[in-house]
């Protein structure tokens, strides 16, 4: 049976998805070389060991974890709201083609505006607080999800809709049993595209406004010329991004195991 020991299969999926670890050589070599060459106390290029110390200092002073959790929570919450609203509106647009045609140019116009540019607008309208930060993340993350959902909803195969009619499904049942499952791969793709945008916008807000978060820590460290901490936090952000992406990839693989492999590979 194909689905016995599913956890083993998910693990194999992740392992297979990771390219050969040998590919990390350039990065490792860079760090090692940096470490060895920087013996002096350069304020601009501190060695990686100093980065670690800098981070530990931040952790001990009790500022690292709150910042990390603030950024993570904003990100996750923002994405969740974006998924709910984006999927909902996307389905509406996709299911009612006349609505979609009417709203089309407006959406195209709004889509052309890059999410980071909206941050100062939010700051102006909502001030310097957590609610504003969340709103911006939602606004930034919503577009890929909404657009992907609406296009997938429009593209539900007409035969499936015929089947729905032939079996006399109510409109609610049709949405629930046929359209919604059909758009799941598209929603996941939208989330995957929205993830990096959401991260960028979250950090941007934190850097601009110094609202609690990793970005705020970073800009604070830079203003105090604490270069080891700046580099350390940069690495931390990199690892954070990597973790988020991979966790999502596993989550996506688990969710998409019922779909034909063709759709699965499109999403990778």
């Amino acid at each position, binding site marked *: 049976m194909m689905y016995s020991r599913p956890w083993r299969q998910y693990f194999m999926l992740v392992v297979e998805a990771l390219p050969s670890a040998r590919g990390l050589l350039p990065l490792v070599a860079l760090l090692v070389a940096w470490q060895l060459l920087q013996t002096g106390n350069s304020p601009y290029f501190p060695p990686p060991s100093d980065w670690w110390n800098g981070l530990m200092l931040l952790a001990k002073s009790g500022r690292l974890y709150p910042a990390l959790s603030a950024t993570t929570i904003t990100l996750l919450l923002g994405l969740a709201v974006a998924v709910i609203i984006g999927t909902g509106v996307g389905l509406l647009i996709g299911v009612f083609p006349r609505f979609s045609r009417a709203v089309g*140019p407006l959406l195209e116009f709004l889509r052309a505006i890059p999410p980071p540019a909206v941050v100062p607008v939010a700051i102006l309208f909502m001030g310097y607080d957590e609610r504003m930060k969340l709103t911006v993340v939602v606004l930034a993350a919503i577009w890929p999800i909404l657009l992907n959902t609406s296009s997938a909803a429009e593209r539900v195969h007409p035969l499936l809709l015929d089947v729905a009619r032939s079996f006399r499904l109510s409109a609610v049942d049709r949405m629930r049993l046929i359209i919604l499952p059909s758009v799941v791969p598209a929603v996941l793709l939208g989330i995957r595209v929205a993830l990096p945008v959401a991260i960028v916008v979250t950090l941007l807000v934190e850097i601009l406004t110094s609202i609690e978060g990793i970005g705020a820590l970073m800009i604070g460290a830079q203003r105090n010329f604490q270069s080891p901490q700046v580099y350390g936090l940069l690495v931390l952000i990199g690892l954070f991004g990597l973790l988020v992406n991979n966790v999502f990839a596993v989550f996506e693989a688990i969710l998409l195991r019922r779909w034909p492999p063709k759709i699965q590979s499109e999403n990778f």
Partner: protein
Amino acid sequence: MHKNSFIARINWPGTAVFVFVGLAWEAAVRSGLLEYEYLPAPSAIGLGFGELASQGILAPDIAHTLISVAIGWTVAIVLGISLGFLLGLSPTARRYSLASIEVLRPMPGVAFAPVGLLLFGFSLKTEMVVTILPVLWPVLVNTIGGVTGVHQRLYDVGRTFRLGRKDTILRIILPAAMPPIVVGARISLGLALVLAVVAEMVGNPDGLGYGIVREQQALRPDLMFAYIVTVGFIGIALNAGMLALAEALFPSFRQLRGGQ
């Protein structure tokens, strides 16, 4: 019949909705219905445009951002394509570098801003630090993909005609890999604009990004929105320009048209 189809092709409901929303917005603000301190009417935004342009502020800001975009994008293209070819042609090189690329790719450009500020303070170089890496990835990844994706059949054709290594690269691999490379270049261009604006918001007080933040802090929402709309238009123009260029240079590549 011709006239009919042209008129029929315009999205009347869509345009109507667009215009209607604009008019409704205008009316709401003017009549006091939408009394929000920082929400300007569309007409105010238009006037804001005029103000910026007539004071000679808008043009230099646009120029600055475009220069930043041009430098960042050009470096990314050159690096991306050359590195991409190297990696695309050599499986060994790929094995020893793909993981690093995968690790670096999710790095948000904005996170490099504090580093850039640390090294270069408020300058164009800081913008470059923010822009370069993220803009590199689409071109690099697409070039690698394009080169490795060249169909085996084409190599067979090359061998049949006894093409040497150099000729194979120039006359088979390069043209075959062009469509994804051009798509990657187009994505990178859009990305370069966004990152330049971001960099100007946090790293270098100059250009359109700084304009947005400056007017926000000066509590001039009309000018702020004018800047934002400018960024939007430039993005559309750059994208359209790239599409037109691609079509002019490679008229046979249908994959380049349509789709984002």
